[in-house]
């Protein structure tokens, strides 16, 4: 689904590369998390996967990027938009502003594609059901809560039926309820729809639960690509500007204060793993 080989990218008028020598492969149906401190290259990688680098943000791109069978450099943005659904952090900016109801907002992309109205209506209804927005179909997009607006942004992309979803901190402006809503919608897309998801976020607990792999970035370089538990329990995580999950932090604290003996097993990164850890049943 995704193949990056030796990708280095510099934004216009900058010397320091935002991405440096990235090699990455993602198979169809995988949920990959992207983590890293601010400025580590997460957003740039998301933009490169969706074609906005180099087509929208010019700059200098080296290496090869292939997404859903499309060589990104040679593929026009319009074609890329049909293959890759991009969702970013501010739900407000993703609402077109040109439509007056949630249902019409979801249909906006299909109208631009010239999809016939009967097919459009059916696809819109499916997307609204997938993202749990059926009850809000007749509401104004601006009357929705933050979580609902972000789900609307996802629905607006889902309806285009891309094979890959790229999400750049989709829940950074949402409260826990909104975050839960968005991740539930994403989980449904992966488990029921078989989509591929690449999600950049600082909310590690959610990635620990949902991601198949986590890619760790630092200053534009990929320094880890592994199972979530192995990446999120790295001893150097804090030095990379990333706070470990609350479960890992609690386990480390318990070991430090002598409540739990360090027996060399893996630290927990999810609630279930934490329960097992504190019950003494860790793997």
């Amino acid at each position, binding site marked *: 689904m995704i193949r990056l080989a030796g990708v280095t990218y510099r934004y216009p008028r900058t010397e320091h590369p935002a991405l440096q020598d990235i090699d990455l492969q993602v198979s169809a149906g995988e949920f990959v998390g992207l983590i890293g401190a601010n400025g580590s290259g997460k957003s740039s990688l998301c933009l490169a996967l969706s074609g906005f680098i180099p087509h929208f943000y010019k700059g200098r791109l080296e290496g090869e990027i292939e997404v859903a069978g499309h060589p990104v450099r040679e593929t026009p943005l*319009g074609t890329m938009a049909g293959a890759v659904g991009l969702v970013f952090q501010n739900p407000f900016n993703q609402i077109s502003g*040109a439509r007056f109801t949630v249902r019409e907002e979801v249909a906006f992309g299909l109208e631009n594609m010239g999809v016939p109205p009967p097919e459009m209506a059916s696809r819109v209804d499916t997307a609204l059901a997938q993202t749990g927005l059926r009850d809000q179909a007749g509401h104004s997009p601006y009357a929705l809560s933050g979580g609902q607006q972000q789900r609307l942004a996802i629905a607006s992309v889902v309806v285009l039926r891309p094979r890959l979803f790229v999400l750049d901190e989709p829940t950074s402006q949402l409260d826990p309820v909104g975050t839960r809503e968005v991740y539930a919608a994403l989980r449904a897309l992966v488990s029921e729809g078989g989509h591929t998801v690449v999600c950049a976020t600082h909310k590690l607990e959610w990635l620990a639960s949902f991601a198949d792999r986590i890619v760790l970035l630092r200053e534009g370089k990929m320094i880890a690509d592994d199972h979530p538990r192995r990446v999120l329990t790295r001893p150097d995580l804090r030095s990379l500007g990333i706070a470990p999950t609350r479960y890992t932090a609690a386990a480390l604290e318990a070991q430090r204060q002598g409540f739990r003996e360090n027996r060399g097993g893996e630290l927990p990164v999810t609630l279930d793993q934490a329960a097992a850890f504190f019950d003494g049943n860790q793997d």
Partner: protein
Amino acid sequence: MTSLTLFRPGKSGLHRLHPLTKLSISGFCLIASITLPDPWMVAGLYFFLMVPLAAWGGMARRFLIACVQFIGPFMLSLFPIQGFFGRGTTILFEIGRFSLKQEGLLLAADYTVRILAGLGAAMLLMFVTRPDHLMQALSERGFPRSLGYIVVTTLQILPRFQEKTQMILNAQRARGLETEGHLLHRARRLLPLVGPLIMGSIIDIDERAIALEARLFNHPGPKTSLHPLVDSRAQRITRSTLSGLIVLLVLWRLLGWLSP
């Protein structure tokens, strides 16, 4: 507030007309209100065409109230100014050095009725026509789609921009900025608002552009709509007739002005 649009949903026959038919009716009323020579004819146009149309749209009361709300303050200034300071020889009464003239009052009445009719024509269109449907109809006839997008989004996004300004204002107040008091003092104090507002808006524009591209706004080829606009032969004939009448009215008026 979710939008600046005056449109109110409805299922009336007027609501269901093609947006261009409504635009033609509105355009005809507007041009007629300017070009008809006799203000009584303009008043007739308002009361015997526009008000019944508003009633057909199920909003006669709202239409009349909105017209009065707009025209009322206007009349309060127009009548005294034209009455006392306009040209005329028929003096109705005098207050000190000022005299109220009949010709001035008649001119004010003429202006008032024409403004009322022109305003009514625009309101009639806005009350029963969704801006996005109007833009859709226009873009199907070759009007630039991006311009239509700007018009419609402005109506929806301006209230959000106001909310954002208020949010920044509240944030600055919370940090001790004085935003009340003397006008100059206030203006100087408000300068710190401008930076965050402009920078935030520039970032927003960038994100919006990406979001639009991601949703294929510039995708080549024909566009469709979730709600295709319904048109009919009768409406097309009506539009052609009204367009012809508009041209005739303008020509007639121009000839009237040009003839000695």
